[in-house]
Every structure is written in C-alpha cells, then in structure tokens.
C-alpha cells in the first residue's frame, strides 16, 4: 500500500509510475517485496527491479539477509525503520542513509505497528526526489477519517525526524 501511495505522489508531480508487490498468499504479516518505478517517460517494462536506486527496509530484522544490498546502483539511497542508529555504511554503493524509528512513531500516532506511511515521509526527506506535500495530498485517495489524520501526522514526523547520513 505504501508503494502505491508513493506512486500516487509521483503522479501528482507529473511523473509516470509503475508499482507492484510480489508475494505468495494474500495474508497479513507474510513476507512481501514491492517495486516502484518513476520516470519522465512512459514506463514499459513490467519486470521486478534488480538494480534499485533506493531500498526501503520496513523490518530491521531483514538486515541479516546476505543478499539485501545485492544489485544496488552506485550512490543509492537506503531508508531503514529501526530504533538503532546506523553506525557504519552498510554497503559501499550507498551514498545516503535515512534512519527513523517508524514503528515507535506509528504506535504513537496511528496506534498500531504500521510504519509504512512514516517511512514515506522519511523517503521524501532523505532522497529529495519529491515534495512532502505530494505525499500528504495523495493519502486521501487511500485513507479517510481519523485514520487518515493519524497517518498524515505519521508521514510528517517521518519527514522531520529521519536522521540522514551521507557517506
């Protein structure tokens, strides 16, 4: 869902987008990976992404995956949800790191461990690829009422509280 919100935000800025998740059975809590492309030109390829410019990790437990950083482009961006700071550069291809305790912010603002929207704010701040207001403006396409208000706060806090490191 966060990947789709991100795509919607890029559309507001006039970009072409394509985003899709990959998983097995439809159930909450199962492993899921999502791919998002944005471009000034129409996007025709329908493949998974093997050489990303940015990697967003929602579950810090995945940091132990040996292939986590495989294929990253040089000077790429890494966004991480974690209560801990990044003490060293996790991969030599990384140029920018953005760490935020999105789980804590989500529990405080949304009331549940749904860190995704907070990480979108962190993404906007760390990459500078799109405006915070584009993310905020597209959220009403997906959420409404009190849940919308709480997630808007979560996005804003992600934007403000992300710690951006440059290597």
């Amino acid at each position, binding site marked *: 869902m966060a*990947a*789709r919100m991100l*795509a*919607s935000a890029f*559309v507001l800025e006039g970009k*072409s*987008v*394509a*985003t*899709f*998740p*990959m998983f*097995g*059975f*439809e159930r909450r809590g199962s492993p899921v990976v999502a791919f998002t492309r944005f471009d000034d030109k129409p*996007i*025709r*390829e*329908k*493949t*998974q992404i*093997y050489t990303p410019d940015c990697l967003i990790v929602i579950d810090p437990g995945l940091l132990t995956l040996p292939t986590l950083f495989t294929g990253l482009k040089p000077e790429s961006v890494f966004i991480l949800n974690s209560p801990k700071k990044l003490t060293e550069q996790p991969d030599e291809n990384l140029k920018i790191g953005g760490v935020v305790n999105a789980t804590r912010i989500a529990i405080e603002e949304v009331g549940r461990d749904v860190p995704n929207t907070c990480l979108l704010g962190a993404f906007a701040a760390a990459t500078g690829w799109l405006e915070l207001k584009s993310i905020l403006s597209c959220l009403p*396409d997906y959420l409404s009422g009190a849940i919308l208000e709480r997630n808007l706060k979560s996005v804003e806090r992600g934007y403000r509280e992300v710690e951006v490191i440059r290597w």
Partner: protein
Amino acid sequence: MAKAQKGQVRVITGNAAAAYGAMLCRPDVATSYPITPMSEVAEQLSAFRADGLVDTEMVEVEGENSAMNVVTAASMAGGRVFTATSSWGLVFMYDAVQQASGFRAPVVMAIANRETPGILAVSGGQQDIISMRDTGWIQIIVEDCQEILDSVIMAFRLAEDFDIQLPVMVNYDGFYLSYLATAVEIPEREDADQFLAPLKQQPERPRLVPGEPLSCGTHGIEIGFMELRYKHCAALERATAKLDEIDKEFGEIFGRSYGGQIEEYRTEDAEIVLVTSGSATGTARTVVDAKRAEGIKVGLVKLRLFRPFPRKRLAEALKGKKAIGVIDRSVGFGWNCGPMYMEIRALTPEIGIIPMLSYIDGLANLDITIPHIERVIDEVSAAAQGKPYQEVTWIPMEE
C-alpha cells in the same frame, strides 16, 4: 462518433482497471467468487454497487462453477453480464465455460492469469489461458493496466455484436499486471455509453425467459448439433476482423488503440521478429529498442487475440522474415515447446521455412527479464545468419 473527453487519471491496479471497465459498461448481472490474484475485481465491483455507481444485480455464489452458470443464464435472458476469475476458479467452471459458448451467451470474463497445477500454485503464469483454448470462447491477452480497462469495454462490443454472440475472456498476467498500479485514464460514463450504443441499433438477441419456450444451446444430436458447431466456428472466424474494426473505432473515440488481433512494433523493416503476449511485451519493447540502437533489425509482434487465432495477420507480419522467436509463459504438454510457438509453427506454409525458436520463461511468478529477452534476440539473430540453434529453450533452466 464524437471524440471522448479527457477522463480522470487515477493510480489503480490492473484488477481495479478490470472492475472500472466492467462498471462503465453497466452490467445487469455480475458475480465473482474471489481468488488470488483477482479478488480485488470482486471487491471493487461490489464497492461500485454500494456507492450507487451501477445498479448491477450482484449475485452471491458459493463457487466459480455457480458464478459462470449464473452469468450464462442471465445472459441468455437478455442481460449484459460480467464475471472474473483466475486459475483454479477457471478450472472449476470448465463445464460451465463450455456451456456458455455452446449457448452463444455473450459473457465477458476478466481473468488474472495464474498457474494451475495444484491449489498451492499461487503464482502468475499463462497456463490457464491454454487450458481454455478449445472452449470456443474468444480469448484476448493484454499488456498493461490501461489496456485491461479499455479491452473490457471493447469485449462487450465484441461479445454482444449480433454477428458474433460469443463469450469473451480478457486475460492479464496475475501478479505482474493484476497488482501493478499505474496511472490509468478512466473514460467518462457518457463516452463509454456512446461507444456501446451501436449495440442497441442491432437486432435483438433471442431471449430465454420464463413463459416463452425456446430451444437453444448445442444440445441437439447429429445434424442439429453439427450445424450449431459450424455456425459457432463461423462466428469465431468473423470475430477476427470485428475485433480490428472495434479497436480502430475505440482509437478514433478515445485516442488509444491496440492493433486489434495483433500489434506490430518495428516489424516493417525487421529481419527477425520476436513474438510475445501479455506483460512481457512491454519489457520486450524496451529490449527491441536497445537492440535496434545496436543495429540489429529486430521487430516485435504482440499476440493479442489467441482464440480465434489471428492466422492471416500473423502470416502477413511474419512472412519474409529470416527467423522468429516466440516467448511462452506456459508449456505445451506432449510437444515440449511453448503452446503459442506451436500454433505459430502451424503457419509455416504461409510464412515459409525459416528458423523458429521456442522459449519457455516466466512460469510461477518467475520474471521474464531484460537479460532473458536480450538472449532470445541474440540467439534468433544468430539463427537468422545460418548458425545452428536449439529449437526449444527453457530459459531459467539454462542459467
């Protein structure tokens, strides 16, 4: 017809695009039993009904077999009907699917393609298209989310045409398209109404309603049955040109068209041609462009209509080429090659004897990647220059 106004652009998935397409055609009756990866079609349609966007009668069914029987019956009573399914849902309605075409019921069904060998094969693949090859339906395969929406609208025009009166499947890759979200232009309601309006000027279809006895369906024996089959096949043949006509008209009104039965991409001066269907076509376009930049004269044919098979247009597109490569996302049991490849090989008398290479890739959510397609073009190119080649390649098995 007047040109359509610019529709609202929304970021929606392929599944939602299918539901929007159906909603814009205002079906009288719709039903769908949810299954991964198309459940969202049923959810969206129900949401449209709840929001009052359509007054479609949504029938709750206990399985896909009932779903197909419900829409077939409603269609025979004169209604416009829609359903959607995938994989095992499709297999579970196999008898009813054949009944729908035997009754010449113009049902429109969206299918998010998925593997079929066992209920745990929850992954994309086109084997379910192949399992429906001989059911007498019209089968269209599309490439992206916008094409899903537009093709569902066109499918109603085709299915309900008085000269056709056959059910139509609109196929899109499960996962790679069903969950792909892109910006999609949603036509305005009055423009969709205008596009479908010519159906109202045609003679009315025979209707099977209580109190008005009517014999219909392929139930007779001997010559009666034979005649119905003969007419069914003749109607399928008419559907080829009709699809081209409808696609052209859609393009004139909405500014988007898809080539009808097939789409040729950079084939005119091509020496070798790649044949693909579904989402892999988009990826193949980027590789064809890159190879062209390297000086390789390669073109691409997108197979959009699988049944009836676009024999004439394919032969025209492939005639005079030096070699062709066909990528299948399914297998042809008993031939050990791709099913679409197998069918294209049957066109040898029209095309001529040239190297034809079969590639099987992308089963069970495996990705048909850019390097895979580069490899195909390189091998087909070498075969065109007279080098020895392997007829059938299971790409991921040789990596």
